């Protein structure tokens, strides 16, 4: 492990303060801050600017916001009026198909759906080329079993539970990261798009062996690295409580972590984490919204 980490950028510090970093990166920034007074001073400057900004905007805008009673009464009246307009008729449906924001979304969804079908078809066709941009949604979220079967060291449960989960889940070195990208044939994508993640997290005994590492998309998919973090936290706690045995946890997470997530959280979609809750099943929802946005209201 490198002792001298480079100073995090202001952007990373802000992401850290906003809770927008993956667990691995957040842990690295936290450790850096603990060691570096300069960066702590930068962090506190950022926080103090935020505090002053919030104060300034509230002082300037709150005084302009009239009491809520009148507007609430008005809204209630309008809602009541809206509610008595009986069942939507076909003209209403038509109007909404072209008029309301929500229906634009329907259009956007259907467009996206056809795009997705096209893409999935294409992915199945060109998979052999190992072009990562053509990998189907779910495949991109699961490692290639031949390249990344998962690797763990022999370890006692007590040892795992003695250390803080975040502290053992360290980012891998740049050279290992490059080796993993190369193995997966990923070239020319921004490094921030992927997190080289442990398939079996070190908190469950996983190692830094390249067979235990794969490039996991950070964003843009419902089943991203943040969702896997949730599963890892859950499994770590469950193993330490004695609810699940360690081997079973390792097996589940290395075989198909998405199925494991569904099994343990009893859900078909990612739960909880705000950055991942809003796009289950829609691999490129930000782009959908971009389309929706351009269509206007």
């Amino acid at each position, binding site marked *: 492990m490198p002792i001298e980490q480079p100073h995090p*950028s202001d*952007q990373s510090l802000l992401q850290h303060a906003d809770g927008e970093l993956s667990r691995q990166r957040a842990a690295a920034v936290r450790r850096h801050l603990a060691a570096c007074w300069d960066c702590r001073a930068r962090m506190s400057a950022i926080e103090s600017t935020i505090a002053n900004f919030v104060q300034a905007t509230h002082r300037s*805008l709150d005084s302009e*916001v009239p009491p809520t009673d009148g507007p609430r009464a008005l809204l209630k009246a309008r809602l009541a009026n809206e509610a008595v307009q009986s069942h939507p008729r076909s003209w209403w449906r038509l109007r909404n198909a072209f008029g309301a924001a929500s229906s634009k979304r329907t259009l956007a969804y259907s467009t996206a759906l056809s795009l997705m079908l096209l893409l999935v078809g294409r992915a199945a066709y060109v998979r052999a080329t190992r072009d990562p941009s053509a990998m189907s949604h779910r495949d991109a979220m699961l490692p290639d079993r031949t390249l990344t079967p998962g690797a763990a060291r022999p370890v006692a449960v007590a040892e795992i539970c003695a250390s803080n989960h975040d502290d053992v889940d360290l980012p891998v070195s740049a050279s290992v990261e490059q080796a993993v990208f190369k193995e997966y044939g990923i070239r020319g994508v921004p490094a921030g798009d992927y997190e080289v993640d442990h398939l079996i997290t070190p908190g469950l005994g996983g190692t830094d062996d390249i067979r235990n590492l794969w490039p996991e998309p950070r964003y843009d998919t419902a089943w991203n690295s943040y969702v896997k973090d949730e599963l890892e936290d859950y499994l770590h706690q469950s193993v330490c409580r004695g609810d699940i045995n360690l081997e079973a946890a390792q097996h589940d997470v290395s075989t198909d972590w998405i199925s494991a997530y569904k099994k343990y959280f009893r859900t078909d979609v990612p739960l909880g984490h705000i950055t991942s*809750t809003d796009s289950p099943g829609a691999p490129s929802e930000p782009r959908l919204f971009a389309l929706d946005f351009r269509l206007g209201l």
Partner: protein
Amino acid sequence: MRPMATPPATSIGELFLPETASASRPSAASAIESEVVGLFEQFRAPVLRYCLSFGLSVHDGEEITQEVFLALFRHLRMGRSRRNLRGWIFRVAHNLALKQRHANRRSPHTAELDESTTRRHSDPSPNPEERAVLAQRHCRLLAVLEALPDQDRCCLRLRSEGLRYREISQVLGMSLGSVSISLARSLARLTFVDER
């Protein structure tokens, strides 16, 4: 706001059939009505503040806020997606505010754009001297905010209303990376004048 539990993804059938049987029952409609009023109470001030940051008058802002929640009512009554309602609310508000600003610019009277910022920040601080220093500082920060490019200002305002990066990216149709860069850039500008 707490993370919202995600309902099962909407089926293709639902996407193309706006009204569902349950959604048109009177009891369901009144339940939705009170839900919308609840959300209105929660989000009226943030949405109104967001509209005001477009330079709109309070009157325009209030009217947009009403429209947003009426649209939300229709959205929910048709049984549409409940995923990320906060993002939905701000996205509709954003589009309406842009439209309103555009309309105002085209009409001859430019409504209340020249309101002096100093008048806006009267506040009861301990003594006049401190008050003056604080007001000056706030003025500088607000001047930076107003001078920011549209997209940066929207990002910053949405973040300060509590939206997460993903929600902001959806409201503004930007990538997550751009949201993060935009926020860091604006913060750097604010820090620069704040530390002077």
